[in-house]
């Protein structure tokens, strides 16, 4: 059975395969057979090339019916369970296949629109988000609102049926490539506490008054951006959920971000380990006990992450909403990511200083890139220190200090 869906721009997408609802093990067989039948793309370290390849790969996955596995059919998904999605991510890793590109849309914004959106918003926005045709960014952090996100100041003033948005966002991943932005902004500046006056808008990045400035990071990539909103008009129909209810949606979003993002990183860093093992064995040079220990350490860290995700999936399936255990997930993910990347880059020893070198057949440039990126893991999406505060007070019940 196939369906045809329309994007927000009205262009019909070609038919997407609608999968039959089946058991996880049948689904795994189907995924394996499909992965055997397609060419898995090689992914470049260079940012532009990587983006292009992964976006095309996302489209391939979408056409085959594997995007939005656990989203509703009306939203362009398959209506299956989080276990199916986890199984799919695991099969991607097993097949040495990359994860799709539209991270913010797929993991963060999409689930929120799926949950809080009007039927119209879901129908018009989600299929193109799943296919990768539209890339989304998330306008949450501001120069003065990082860990203290609720103190953000970007204003949206409602006038009739139109919001007028003024303000500045920062650390907005992929904003320079995004056609849409999930914007958290102040709609009631008098609200006490402040976060009761925040709303969640779905903004067209091509609207007049939106300006984007990429910020180059220490990895060499420029996926982070500053985004400026100067009198940007947003139709009221693009409000997600109720007016002044944005904080709740954002918290929910951040919570699902953690579960989904962890699954994705499991695939990606799992892949880094497998490739490194391949490179070492292909070169035929065994190093010493340090090599074994480093590979062992990375293997254990990934197993820990996988088991944590298995628990998260059980929790997401029971749909209990945001939970302080999400912060445990984030901490486990940070640690796994940093341990794996640190263990693997250490294999290059002094050669990490020269990323173009290939000691023992290792792709040093990639190891260095990923290791540096892993250092951001304990900063983005809520620093480890903020997570530990949440764990201590909301999970362990320690008194507020």
């Amino acid at each position, binding site marked *: 059975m196939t369906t045809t869906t329309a994007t927000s721009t009205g262009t019909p997408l070609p038919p997407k395969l609608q999968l039959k609802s089946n058991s996880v093990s049948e689904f795994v067989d189907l995924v394996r057979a499909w992965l055997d039948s397609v060419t898995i793309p090689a992914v470049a370290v260079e940012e532009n090339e990587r983006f292009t390849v992964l976006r095309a790969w996302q489209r391939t996955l979408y056409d085959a019916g594997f995007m939005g596995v656990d989203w509703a059919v009306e939203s362009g998904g398959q209506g299956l369970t989080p276990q199916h999605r986890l199984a799919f991510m695991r099969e991607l890793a097993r097949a040495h296949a990359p994860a799709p590109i539209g991270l913010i849309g797929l993991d963060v914004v999409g689930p929120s629109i799926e949950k809080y959106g009007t039927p119209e918003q879901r129908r018009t926005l989600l299929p193109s988000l799943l296919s990768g045709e539209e890339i989304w960014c998330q306008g949450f952090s501001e120069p003065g609102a990082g860990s203290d996100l609720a103190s953000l100041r970007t204003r949206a003033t409602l006038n009739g049926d139109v919001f007028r948005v003024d303000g500045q966002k920062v650390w907005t991943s992929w904003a320079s490539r995004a056609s849409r932005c999930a914007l958290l902004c102040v709609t009631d500046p008098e609200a006490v506490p402040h976060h009761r006056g925040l709303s969640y808008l779905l903004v067209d990045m091509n609207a007049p008054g939106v300006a984007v400035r990429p910020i180059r990071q220490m990895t060499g990539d420029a996926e982070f951006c500053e985004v400026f909103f100067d009198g940007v008009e947003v139709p009221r129909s693009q409000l997600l959920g109720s007016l002044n209810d944005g904080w709740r949606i954002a918290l929910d979003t951040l919570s699902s971000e953690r579960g989904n993002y962890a699954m994705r990183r499991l695939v990606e860093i799992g892949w880094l380990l497998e490739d490194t*093992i*391949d490179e*070492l*064995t*292909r070169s035929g040079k*065994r190093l010493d*006990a340090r*090599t*074994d*220990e*480093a*590979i*062992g*350490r990375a*293997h*254990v860290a990934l*197993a*820990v992450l*996988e*088991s*944590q995700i*298995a*628990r998260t999936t*059980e929790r997401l399936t029971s749909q209990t909403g945001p939970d302080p*255990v999400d912060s*445990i997930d984030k*901490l*486990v993910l940070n*640690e796994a990511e940093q341990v794996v990347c640190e263990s693997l880059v250490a294999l290059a020893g002094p050669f990490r200083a020269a990323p173009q070198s290939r000691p023992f057949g290792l792709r040093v440039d990639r190891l260095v890139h990923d290791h540096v990126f892993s250092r951001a893991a304990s900063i983005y999406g809520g620093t480890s*220190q903020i*997570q*530990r*505060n949440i*764990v*201590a*007070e909301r*999970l*362990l*019940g*320690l*008194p*507020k*200090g």
Partner: protein
Amino acid sequence: MTDVVEADDTQLVQELQAGLTSVLGNGAARDRVGVSESAARTEGALAELGWSSLGAPIEADGPGIAPWDLAPLMTTVGKNLAPGPLAEMLLLPAVFALADADGLALVDGGATPAWAAHVGVVRQATDRIRGEVALVQRPATITGLVVVVEGPEEGDSPCLVARIPYPQSGVSVDEVVSADPTARLCTISIDVAEADVEVLAAGADAARMVQDLRSWRRVLAACEMTGIAERVLADSLDYAQVRHQFGRAIGSFQAVKHILAEMAQKSMSLSALCQLTLHRAPEAGPDERELAALTVYAHACEVVRFVTEGGLQVHGGIGFTEELDLQLFIKRAYALSVTLGGAAETLSEIGSRRLFAREAVC
């Protein structure tokens, strides 16, 4: 997650867990360990639970509970502590189809490959079985030994598993001081004729069973370490809320909160990994299970040290004394986290298996 445990076994294990908690949950762990009346009483209560035959298969007239169902009992042991060797008593009947493991000491110097040369192994030498193995866990009363016998040359795999009654001439047991009051240790010397031992397994069967035994020992040790971590976390949380300094509970200070939050993170991650390992065990082949066992053990070794040392820091001076049980949990954690090879050696084992497996495919 699909429940892999058969309904009646689940219920049985839950009842056993409740029974074990009532045996161990009363009174302080420090009264139960060492050579004491209370230790003997605990041993008697465990015997009443039928501990040493819980792992016995149906063909040996046992309840036939699989190791993955027995493993959570070791988490309960970890939470309370009791004189051992308790894991070995569960596993020996399960792996070698024995009716009972009461009084049996397991002699397997090769269980910690990186240290085998120093710990010692027992070898086949023409028609004799000979060797000296240190750091063997000693039951209070030894009635026999289960000995893993390696081939005549260094590097040979286990070729025989023998049961030797004790006392017997040619076998000596010398107790040594143990740093962990819940485990008595001894050095065992063996020089007996092969004809005088009972062969539990030989050849490829022996190698396979020993691989399985070592895997399960690591998994059960990881479960016990999970229990220790959970208990120390719970005790430390309680303490951080009742201990006041500068006019408020120390648990309200961010520096203390972050120690406890990290302890919780590590402890929960270990429990999740144990759960997944046990969940997958029934379907896993021997090599896969071995890799999973090494993995969960390596993680457990790091977690249990982190959590117990963090717990000591939260408790401050009182935690360093013998007034509290905490020191026992810490000593048990230190022992468990080296007894089957320790974290660093285990990580190397895992890495070499991962690299070797790929080389074999290439």
